């Protein structure tokens, strides 16, 4: 029948499974190899993230692998040439690491903050963060401050998880889906899979986006918002829900702090803070007991509305009352925001009421027994099937934090959070609101030579005392994160690093390490100016560059590499080991905790090394405590050894699958020396499916 059609010679081929790295979704891929070359990349059908499909970028991974822009060997800027000229001399890895070690040893022994270590859209922040913490510099972050931070911070400070990686719409039960500022990204394949599911089931898809491209093209209704006005639209929807009394009273009482009391004492200390008892517990007014009671407790009947006089005589009001006062104001009425939002008032009101209809009249109930946080058993799970999702259009605007909080407010009013049909958390989220992790701000520890930070460089401040500033209020971080200027900078501000370091504001760096971060582009999208800054010299310091030593680690040549003093060439994602860890940015789905690995599928044809391998090596050379044995020799034989044997706390390591000596334990267990092999056997990912009552 097909005499003329020649088929592939599969005998010459090999199939391997790994994890995509063409964007941050981290889909499972099935790779066909032929003669140490990639023949075909397709989606892995068994993978929880992409379930067999693959986007255009994923398939284009083959073009990345064979890109002519790959860096091939370590390079040192030729003495006597200037930054940007791109004249380099090849050096050996040994020489390169010696130069770098000597420089870093000196910084670490004198003033550790003089090292800046900033990374791009990497997926190894658990390791890079640990490395920076062990070095003792607060000057570390990845690219989130330039990307999702508004949205991530809004979520983590409001609902304990967030859009993008920490939660996902429940595509199996959602009947209404409102998408804010998402074009065709974050996440790519899961949203495409989900939109088709939703539409097949007859659910309604509404998109809020200035342009109708990407996902918005297939929306049932398009709200062509004026850029930056999403928050106002969300607040107007809050107005509509309140005006028509469409809110989930029980949800607000049980699962939010809407009943907590807020001190009303304008101009006085404590104004706007929660009323708390002597044990620091927030208080509510119990309408049954007619008394102030602990708002954390389970056996309370709190007033959702009302104004009271606290035992100390101060006026207090419930959060809900304050919200109602603010958002019922005519300022937020649809007809009064229509012009600013560029939307018909009718549409704003109708969409809000449609969501209310679906939330309250088309409720999903699943017969799943579960136990709540107060230990009480329930015989069913109630889901308000209105799902939402937001990403860059919200996150990348200067008002994104509050816009995103307004979106979460709609979810809370509808009771449409972390339940069937709405927006569900992905392990290890939800976490406490905000997560219990504070950034290092002890100036003595930060300044101490050869001393790790006692806490990670990034975290979630809740009080002025948590800010990373000195006694005069000056920022301690080069990017000024957690200063009065940017107090809730959950991901750091890598886009400010080159500007601040060039201006020596708040201080000068000695060495700046950039890993897969084309900061000439990533810094304020101002390539030419950033390149000028990297060329800028300090006439007061013998004509040295204002950023004296710049190290660029990348697999590819970019607008940045020609400005480096030292270039360390990295491997591609198909040439190295990686772990996509639950300690970091995991690939969990709402129904399963999941993580994944990469391992080398093809041998590099160049003198390149995986940066993670180099980081572990440098950590040993610099004798970081977590990377050093008591006798002073390196504790880990390399990256793979580190991933298997490093434990953040006993039993908790980078990879959650096949733990325990014999590989039989999940999530927690002793290191398993054969863990990498188990992952490779299992198509490079691990998924722990939650029993129904833990979902």
């Amino acid at each position, binding site marked *: 029948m097909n005499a003329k*059609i020649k088929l592939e010679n599969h005998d010459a081929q090999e199939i391997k499974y790994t994890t995509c790295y063409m964007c941050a979704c981290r889909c499972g891929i099935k790779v066909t190899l032929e003669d140490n070359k990639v023949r075909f990349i397709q989606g892995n059908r068994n993978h929880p993230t992409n379930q067999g499909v693959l986007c255009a970028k994923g*398939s284009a991974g083959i073009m990345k692998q064979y890109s002519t822009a790959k860096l091939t060997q370590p390079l040192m800027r030729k003495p006597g040439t200037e930054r940007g000229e791109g004249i380099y001399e090849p050096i050996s890895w040994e020489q390169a690491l010696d130069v770098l070690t000597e420089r870093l040893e000196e910084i670490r022994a004198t003033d550790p903050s003089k090292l800046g270590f900033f990374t791009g859209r990497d997926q190894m922040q658990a390791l890079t963060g640990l490395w920076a913490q062990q070095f003792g510099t607060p000057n570390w972050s990845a690219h989130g401050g330039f990307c999702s931070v508004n949205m991530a911070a809004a979520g983590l400070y409001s609902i304990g998880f967030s859009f993008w990686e920490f939660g996902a719409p429940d595509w199996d039960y959602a009947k209404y889906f409102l998408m804010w500022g998402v074009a065709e990204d974050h996440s790519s394949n899961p949203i495409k899979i989900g939109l088709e599911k939703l539409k097949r089931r007859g659910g309604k898809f509404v998109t809020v986006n200035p342009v109708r*491209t990407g996902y918005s093209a297939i929306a049932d209704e398009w709200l062509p918002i004026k850029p930056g006005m999403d928050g106002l639209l969300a607040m107007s929807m809050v107005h509509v829900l309140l005006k028509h009394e469409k809110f989930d009273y029980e949800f607000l009482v049980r699962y939010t702090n809407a009943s907590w009391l807020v001190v009303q004492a304008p101009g006085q200390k404590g104004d706007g803070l929660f009323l708390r008892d002597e044990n620091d517990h927030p208080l509510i007014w119990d309408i049954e007991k007619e008394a102030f009671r602990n708002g954390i407790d389970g056996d309370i009947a709190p007033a959702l509305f009302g104004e009271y006089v606290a035992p100390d005589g101060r006026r207090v009001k419930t959060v809900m009352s304050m919200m109602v006062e603010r958002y019922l104001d005519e300022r937020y009425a649809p007809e009064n925001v229509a012009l600013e939002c560029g939307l018909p008032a009718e549409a704003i009101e*109708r969409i809000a009421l449609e969501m209310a209809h679906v939330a309250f*009249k088309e409720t999903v109930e699943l017969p799943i027994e579960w136990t709540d946080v107060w230990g009480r058993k329930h015989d069913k799970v109630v889901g308000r099937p209105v799902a939402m999702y937001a990403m860059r259009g919200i996150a990348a605007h200067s008002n994104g934090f509050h816009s995103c909080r307004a979106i979460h407010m709609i979810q809370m009013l509808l009771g449409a959070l972390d339940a069937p049909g709405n927006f569900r958390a992905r392990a290890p989220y939800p976490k406490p609101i905000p997560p219990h992790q504070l950034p290092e701000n002890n100036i003595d520890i930060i300044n101490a030579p050869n001393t790790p930070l006692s806490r990670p460089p990034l975290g979630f401040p809740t009080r002025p005392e948590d800010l990373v500033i000195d006694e005069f209020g000056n920022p301690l971080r080069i990017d000024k994160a957690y200063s009065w200027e940017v107090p809730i900078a959950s991901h750091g501000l890598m886009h400010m690093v080159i500007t601040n370091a060039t201006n020596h504001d708040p201080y000068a760096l000695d060495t700046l390490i950039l890993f897969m971060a084309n900061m000439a582009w990533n810094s304020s999208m101002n390539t030419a100016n950033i390149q000028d800054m990297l060329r800028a010299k300090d006439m007061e310091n013998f004509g040295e560059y204002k950023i004296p030593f710049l190290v660029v680690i990348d697999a590819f040549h970019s607008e940045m590499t020609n400005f480096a003093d030292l270039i360390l060439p990295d491997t591609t994602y198909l040439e190295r080991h990686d772990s996509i860890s639950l300690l970091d940015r995991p690939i969990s789905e709402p129904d399963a905790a999941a993580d994944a690995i990469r391992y080398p599928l093809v041998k590099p044809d160049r003198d390149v090394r995986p940066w993670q391998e180099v980081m572990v090596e440098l950590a040993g050379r610099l004798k970081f405590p977590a990377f050093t044995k008591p006798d002073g020799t390196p504790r880990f034989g390399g990256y793979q050894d580190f991933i298997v044997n490093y434990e953040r706390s006993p039993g908790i390591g980078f990879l959650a699958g096949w733990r325990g000596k014999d590989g039989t334990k999940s999530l927690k267990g002793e290191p398993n020396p054969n863990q990498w092999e188990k992952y490779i056997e299992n198509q490079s990912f691990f998924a722990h499916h939650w029993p129904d009552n833990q979902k």
Partner: protein
Amino acid sequence: MRLGLVIDLDVCVGCHACAIACKEWNASGTIGPLSDYQPYGAEPSGVWFNRIRHYEMDEYPNNKTVNFPMSCMHCEDADCVTVCPTGASYKRPEDGIVLIDQDKCMGCNYCSWACPYGARELDRSSGTMKKCTLCVDRIYDQDLPVEERQPSCVLTCPAHARMFGDFDDPDSAVSRTVRERSGFGLMPELNYNPTNRYLPPRSKPVIPVEPKSKGGLKESIKQFANKLVRR
């Protein structure tokens, strides 16, 4: 057999995954290559079997962006075959796939002028015409897992907007879907009798609303009464 594709315009987000997967499979496949011109140069371009057209229709609020993937329709009455002066273009009787014998093709472009769907392109590297083969080197490959014996564009489509199957079989998934969703062929008036079918956008769901308040003034806060709800 009459093999072909169904493309669901209700869910195609225009992401080009199909076009890239096609490129990837066929660039170094046994019946390729699907040539690239200067893939790493300043102006990369090349030959495609499948291109996604994007159209904007109507005015707000009825406007719509339509993503329209187009590849060879594997017509029953394919003029591209009839006009071919060398006999390189042929339609396989056993499954209806239209192919080009690369050894016979002289790259004269007649077929591309005859095709109203823009499905044929001249490969400047090989000097021959190229077109979608429905991944004929995948769909009959017994060494591939059964579920992967599909065109690469269908395998990869993240929105599951593409289906592959036999339109001669009334019980095939493609035949059933076309019946249920009123699938249509493009430009039937030209009488080429294309095999591929497109599914139109579904009708929009209608959701009732239940407004309550007629007022909505700030004073309505006074209407909010506490309910006895125990946590």
